[in-house]
């Protein structure tokens, strides 16, 4: 990705699908994600604890790291001018080492708000096999025209 790769509001329409992102999850990836988010709870790095104390099959991906995965998925699609406004999560199941997690997303709505900021509303799901493990609704600002930069918006000009 380079600073030049940018998706603008004009390039996006309702119903567009974001490219799928498949990731093979390893124990290293789970532990790296937990430590990167300073989450020291043992169920995210200690398999014995996860199995015998939590009653799950292995260590599992923590919530803040899932948020970071969703952000990466969204901004891979928007480019660096894409500015996250809002995310809403519903976690239904866990992601374990050995899983192949797949991110999929659809554009639900596109438009400008009353201060002229361009927004794409996204419905994203994280699936393992047939099972949707986390759903995420996100609202991301995109340049509304050439030369527009959502990151310059402040105060009343930014309504996430």
């Amino acid at each position, binding site marked *: 990705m380079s*600073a030049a790769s940018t998706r603008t509001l004009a390039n996006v329409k309702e119903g567009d699908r974001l490219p799928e992102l498949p990731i093979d999850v390893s124990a290293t990836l789970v532990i790296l994600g937990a430590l*990167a988010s300073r989450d020291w709870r043992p169920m995210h790095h200690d398999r014995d604890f996860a199995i015998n104390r939590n009653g799950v099959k292995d260590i599992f991906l923590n*919530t*803040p790291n899932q948020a970071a995965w969703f952000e990466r998925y969204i*901004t891979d699609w928007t480019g*660096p001018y894409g500015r*996250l406004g809002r995310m809403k999560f519903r976690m239904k199941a866990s992601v374990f080492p050995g899983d192949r997690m797949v991110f999929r997303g659809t554009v639900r709505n596109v438009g400008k708000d009353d201060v002229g900021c361009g927004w794409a509303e996204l419905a994203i799901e994280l699936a393992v096999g047939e099972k949707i493990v986390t759903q995420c609704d996100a609202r991301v600002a995109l340049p509304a025209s050439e030369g527009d930069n959502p990151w310059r918006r402040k105060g009343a000009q*930014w309504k996430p």
Partner: protein
Amino acid sequence: MTTEQQSAAEDLPADVQSWIDQIRYEEEGEFPVEQGYVWTTCASVQNGNPLFWDARAAEEITAGPIAPPTMLSVWFRPHYWAPGRAKQSQPLQVHFDLKERLGLPEAVMTDNTIEFHEPVRVGDRLRTRQILRSVGPLKDTKLGKGRFWVIEVEYLNQKGELVGRESYTGLGYRRNA
């Protein structure tokens, strides 16, 4: 707040009612926003966004280096150890206060919404505060008898600007016998 929630709040102990819409547990993070953790987080999810890796792109687009917005809560999770630390503060203390005061020993979070405002910049000193927004009536759920509540957590930078706001919906309950 809805009418139902307002009337429900009336059956709450007076001290819990007094918590609604009050700022509580305002505290500053133990350390400033640090570049190393930005890179560690980006590496953990293979995030190549040039805003976090390319100083020129960051200067041009965000007027300097910023942290990924979703790292908001990371800045309030302490290091595993710190010299002289006696006790670690608990994130979402209001949630634990409600469980204890209302005699609801179990709890789950059902919903989490994060709003992102001013970008968080490397070197920022952030502070946070918790606000109880509502507590619903006692009701039967599939987990047990309990109440739903909504807690907001605000994050501000050293200039007092809002950098983010999280909203958690929690269900505190007592398991069915």
